[in-house]
């Protein structure tokens, strides 16, 4: 049983604050992904859970026990590092069994568990090779194998796939997902790749500058971003944000274009409020080429600046209310720059953020 709890956890390097008091509860067997831009404190947070970094303030608990002052070896966790951190002088078998050997397991037990882990990860034919003789993906698997043989209370992953090429990353992502289904354990997974976050996580923790911006399931985070930061960070291409004011029940954009306030938000805005209208590229499409044609919407004629055909869809750059926005066209249709098309904004999926705070105007 190992839930992990962070209470007001602070990390400072000298006077420089890196993590500013984060609270997070990770349930037993939950797969939580910490995601955020480079330098936001994801690794630092993970390393504090692992015990590789001193905790400046607050409490870290694993399985209910405060572990602030326990060395890593007493925390019963496994960690997979970004560049694998295999032991270069040991072959795969010894790499996998090293933790068990240190724990004083019998050779028979070690070889049994190493065999099992190697089987799960398809490493059996590679057991006698040294890390130098493995490909990136194979090293990655050894690193994971080393983590699972020990039956830890929790797995910590620090960007384990970032050194792999795109194709292998996709494969390994699927393998990690499968692995978690087979070996159910608490997982904390750090990445700055939002696709990994969306596909792997039970819950996503979006971090920025040492703070937590939002915690939620992938769908919650995608459909109800709590802040403009989350809105632009999760989802690709990022959500368009257009400055606007509320007046007379409408959202009035900078150039005077008015679109109705989305139904579900009407009770939450007042006249004169400065907002940002958030709308994903997928929800701005030429009429007849969008995802959904029903539901409330607004139609505007826009000039195409640039179109990037991607096969079944095209990414369109255009300007709305004087600001560059990205739109999507679904269907294999070629669009030429300069073409004027009528775009439909799917307002039921639009968001409003308070311009001053960047927070969503709707309480979740």
């Amino acid at each position, binding site marked *: 049983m190992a839930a992990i709890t962070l209470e007001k956890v602070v990390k400072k390097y000298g006077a420089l604050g890196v993590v500013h008091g984060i609270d997070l509860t990770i349930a037993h067997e939950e797969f939580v992904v910490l995601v955020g831009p480079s330098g936001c404190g994801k690794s630092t947070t993970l390393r504090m859970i*692992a*015990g*590789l970094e001193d905790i400046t303030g607050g409490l870290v608990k694993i399985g209910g026990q405060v572990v602030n002052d326990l*060395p*890593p*070896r007493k925390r019963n*966790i*496994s*960690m997979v*590092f970004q*560049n*694998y*951190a*295999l*032991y*270069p*002088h*040991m072959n795969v078998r010894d790499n996998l069994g*090293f*933790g068990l050997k*240190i*724990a004083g397991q019998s050779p028979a037990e070690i070889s049994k568990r190493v065999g099992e882990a190697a089987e799960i990860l398809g490493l059996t034919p590679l057991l006698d090779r*040294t*890390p*130098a*003789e493995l490909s990136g993906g194979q090293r990655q698997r050894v690193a994971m194998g*080393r983590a699972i043989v*020990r039956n830890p209370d929790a797995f910590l992953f620090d960007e384990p796939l970032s050194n792999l090429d795109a194709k292998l990353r996709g494969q390994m992502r699927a393998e990690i997902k499968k692995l978690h289904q087979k070996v159910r354990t608490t997982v904390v997974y750090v990445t700055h790749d939002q696709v990994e976050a969306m596909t792997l996580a039970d819950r996503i923790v979006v971090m920025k500058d040492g703070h937590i911006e939002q915690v939620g399931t992938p769908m919650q985070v995608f459909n109800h971003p709590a802040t403009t930061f989350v809105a632009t960070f999760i989802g690709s291409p990022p959500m368009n944000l257009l400055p606007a004011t509320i007046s007379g029940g409408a959202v009035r954009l900078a150039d005077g274009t008015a679109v109705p306030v989305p139904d579900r938000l009407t009770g939450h805005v007042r006249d004169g409020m400065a907002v940002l209208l958030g709308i994903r590229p997928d929800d701005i499409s030429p009429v007849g080429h969008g995802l959904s044609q029903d539901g409330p919407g607004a139609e505007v004629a826009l000039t195409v600046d640039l179109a990037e055909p991607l096969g079944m869809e095209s990414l369109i750059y255009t300007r709305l209310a004087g600001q560059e926005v990205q739109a999507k066209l679904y269907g294999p249709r070629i669009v030429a720059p300069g073409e004027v098309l009528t775009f439909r904004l799917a307002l039921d999926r639009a968001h409003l953020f308070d311009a001053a705070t960047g927070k969503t105007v709707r309480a979740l």
Partner: protein
Amino acid sequence: MIRALTTKRPEMTPFLLLTPALITMLFVVALPLVFSLWTSLTPYQLTKPQTIYSFVGLRNYTRLLTDPGFWIPFGRTVLFLTIALNLEFAFGLGIALLINKITWGQRGLRTIMMFPMMFSPILVGFQFKFIFNDNIGILNNALQSLGLTDQAIPWLVDAKLAMFSLLFAEIWMSTSVFAILLLAGLFAMPRDPLEAAKVDGCNAFQTFRHITLPFLMPFAYIAMTIRSLDVARAYDIVKVMTGGGPAGRTELLWTMIARTGYENAKMGQANAMAYISTVLSILFTWYFYRKLIAARRFMGGVQ
């Protein structure tokens, strides 16, 4: 003319370009080797040049093989080398680990650590000769003033103590070779495997034993290769401090070779000894080099 040659026979160009190097090699390496090998097959004496023409075959070698007067210094050299290298490794490792830990003044210490290597071995020998001298040496002086002993200890006269004193000087002078190379190793050491080991359950000692030390061993073997060649030809410190005495009890290979060649004027036999000791050095180098290759095999290609 050269141009004519290279245009007519372009395949000769590499050889032409190599000629200066080949000529240098011939005079600097090949000729002395051939000359000394030849003299080791004659009863050559520096004072009687004509002896160089009387070929005696392997007589010098066969004599040496059965002569305890040769094998005892030979064995002593091997022992000296073994002890010196092991202790230098141990001390060098300790120093490197300590220096690696400190954060302030590290550069300064690294420089100071090199000082002993900057001195001429002859001067180091003289210095220790005076330190260990039984009448006027500061060591005995200090021991007596502190009341630790009431009579002078014959550091350079008693055979065992003299060996110890020689070792002490040798180790004092050259431990930094190990320290520097091991420190370089520690600087190059990736941090990740250390952290992985901590997470895998290692305490500080286990991390050192299973991760750091194996990583450092190639560096240690490089130092050992260098130092084994160094110690196997040890001459200056011994010559200055004990002159191989008392009664030949601290005689090492090269002091013996020098004595045979110059004082006893048996250059032929001395050269035979030198060839045998060269074989010893080659053996040590080969041994450490093999260890190095084995220890290094894993280091290629792993980031």
